């Protein structure tokens, strides 16, 4: 495996509320290598976006990192102060949000956005920054960038705005881009174009992506590896071919069953019964057991650990026993 850019180790995020402490993220571990796309999937509320926010120090109040480490290269970044993390944001880690309509300041031109961001991070003068902004727009596929650079956000279509947002995230050539549901707000045809763009950027620039989504189809098309999250924990993590092709965790199996497929023999989509518990009412043991068809006694008592080979791990008692036996 090539060099690791980001590694998250045993990350825990807590929210102090007047109804007690909520654990939003519990014992999250994963890593991302250079030029790799790591997909992070799960239902809304599973903690996908919280993981991205924790890396960038963007957890909303009163949340805080209560344990674990986050390493960018060799540098520990979870304990940086405000100036420390500001030097990382945009410079070494870029971030993209869900809705390109609201991600841009309506009162500034696209060019103002880009040159501003470029000049904050790189020692370029106004003219050089503008030239670079045009290059970036060209690279993300905005036609006629030298003219379009002086347009306001509302003059772009949704897909084009997301391209602009990606260009903004790439201004200072970060090693990693965290993309939080980058295509959810877009039309299906536009989604495919954005996915293609992300793949292209990975191969040409070696930028790594952490792709947060609830869309398994998109993961299958875009990601190299995938982490499945459930109720603030990683349920399964591994290569896309393994996790999508032969999922181990009953939840992951359920998710895969929820992808419609033409050559699927089954007459209708399988779905997982019930819904994810809220963080205020997590069940004891494995938090998935109330919805699991294969739940055992131990699932109700003890939470399973994330175990397995380096490139494919799962947190489920079904496999823990085999491990112990082997």
């Amino acid at each position, binding site marked *: 495996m090539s060099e690791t850019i980001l590694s998250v180790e045993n990350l825990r995020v807590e929210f102090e509320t007047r109804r007690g402490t909520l654990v939003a993220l519990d014992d999250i571990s994963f890593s991302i290598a250079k030029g790799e796309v790591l997909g992070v999937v799960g239902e809304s509320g599973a903690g996908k976006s919280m993981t991205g926010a924790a890396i*960038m120090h*963007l957890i909303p109040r009163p949340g805080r990192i209560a344990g674990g480490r986050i390493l960018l290269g060799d540098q520990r970044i979870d304990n940086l102060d405000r100036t420390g993390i500001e030097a990382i944001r945009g410079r070494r880690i870029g971030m993209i949000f869900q809705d390109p309509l609201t991600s841009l300041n309506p009162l500034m031109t696209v060019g103002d956005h880009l040159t501003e961001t470029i000049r*904050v991070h790189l020692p370029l003068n106004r003219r050089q920054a503008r030239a670079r902004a045009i290059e970036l727009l060209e690279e993300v596929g905005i036609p006629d960038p030298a003219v379009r650079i002086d347009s306001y956000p*509302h003059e772009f279509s949704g897909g084009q705005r997301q391209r602009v947002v990606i260009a903004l995230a790439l201004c200072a050539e970060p090693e990693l881009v965290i993309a939080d549901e980058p295509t959810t707000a877009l039309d299906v045809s536009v989604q495919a174009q954005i996915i293609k763009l992300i793949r292209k950027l990975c191969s040409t620039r070696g930028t790594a992506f952490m792709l947060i989504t609830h869309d398994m189809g998109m993961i299958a098309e875009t990601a190299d590896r995938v982490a499945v999250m459930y109720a603030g924990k990683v349920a399964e993590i591994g290569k896309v071919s393994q996790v999508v092709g032969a999922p181990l965790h009953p939840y992951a199996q359920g998710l895969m069953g929820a992808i419609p497929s033409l050559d699927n023999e089954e007459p209708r989509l399988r779905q997982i019964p019930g819904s994810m518990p809220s963080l205020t009412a997590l069940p004891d043991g494995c938090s998935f057991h109330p919805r699991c068809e294969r739940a055992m006694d131990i699932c109700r008592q003890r939470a399973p650990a994330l175990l397995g080979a380096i490139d494919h791990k799962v947190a489920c008692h079904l496999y823990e026993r085999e491990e112990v036996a082997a």
Partner: protein
Amino acid sequence: MIALVIRRLLQSLAVMLVVSLLAFVMFRYAGDPVNQMVGAETTAAERQAVRESLGLDQPTLVQFARYVGRVVTLDFGVSYQFRQPVTKLLAERLSATLELSFVAALISLFAGIVLGVYSALNPRGRISSLLQSVSLVGVSLPTFLIGILLIYIFSVSLGWLPAFGRNGLIPVTENWSTGLLTIEGWKSLFLPAITLGLFQMTLIMRLVRSEMLEVLRTDFIKFGVARGLPRARLYFRHALKNTLVPVITVVGLQIGSIIAFSIITETVFQWPGMGLLFLQAVQNVDIPIISTYLLLIALLFVTVNLIVDLIYNFIDPRLKDAAS
């Protein structure tokens, strides 16, 4: 852009026509103008002569047209109380009200925006919560009570500033004298201006604070933080400009309040402005002055709204495109 200006101008003209109809109806039908102009011992024939000389025997539409004609030439009739042309009475007092309102508006805008931004950026700070409490008190205290309190502190107890009146005037033209050129003038302006501006200031401060908090929660600010933009740049370049768009509208509308409160402030400090004149007119049912004051205020409103619309279009590119 020009099409927009013309359309807005036409709308303003329509509004002014409606208001002048209202003023005309008041002028003509609230009380009999003839009775107000002649003595008790006047004969019926003499009354009729006055009636005809005023054109009150003509059809209503003709009377309205004549009224508008007179208004356009700044002839608003004669005050019942003072037996003087309303135009002259108002012109004498225009400078007092304008100077007071202008200084008060500047104070409230400047302090309101600065304090509002500060408390939005430090929402949990000690000073911010103090400001919030003080502003609640400021909104709760009636203007006249604040004025009386200030008089008690600065005039009666400390004796630093005059308690009432407008002093230190230097005549500029026949009808216009300014108090802004002498220390004495500023001294007498100070308390009324603070009193008039305080309510607007707390209002602007609260509005700026809540709008700015709203803007700071938006995605584009979050995205700006994630891009590593420095705080100062995000706050003052991105957030403040977006905050000011709704603030401008409200401030424009607040011009009306400044005028209404100038009536109160002028009463508390016996400031010889138009508001005091209007209040005397209301107390003595001096309809020509009341209706003219109404017209004047409508004109001010329409003008301010026009300006606000144009500023709006200048700031927000989305509206520019929608208009053309």
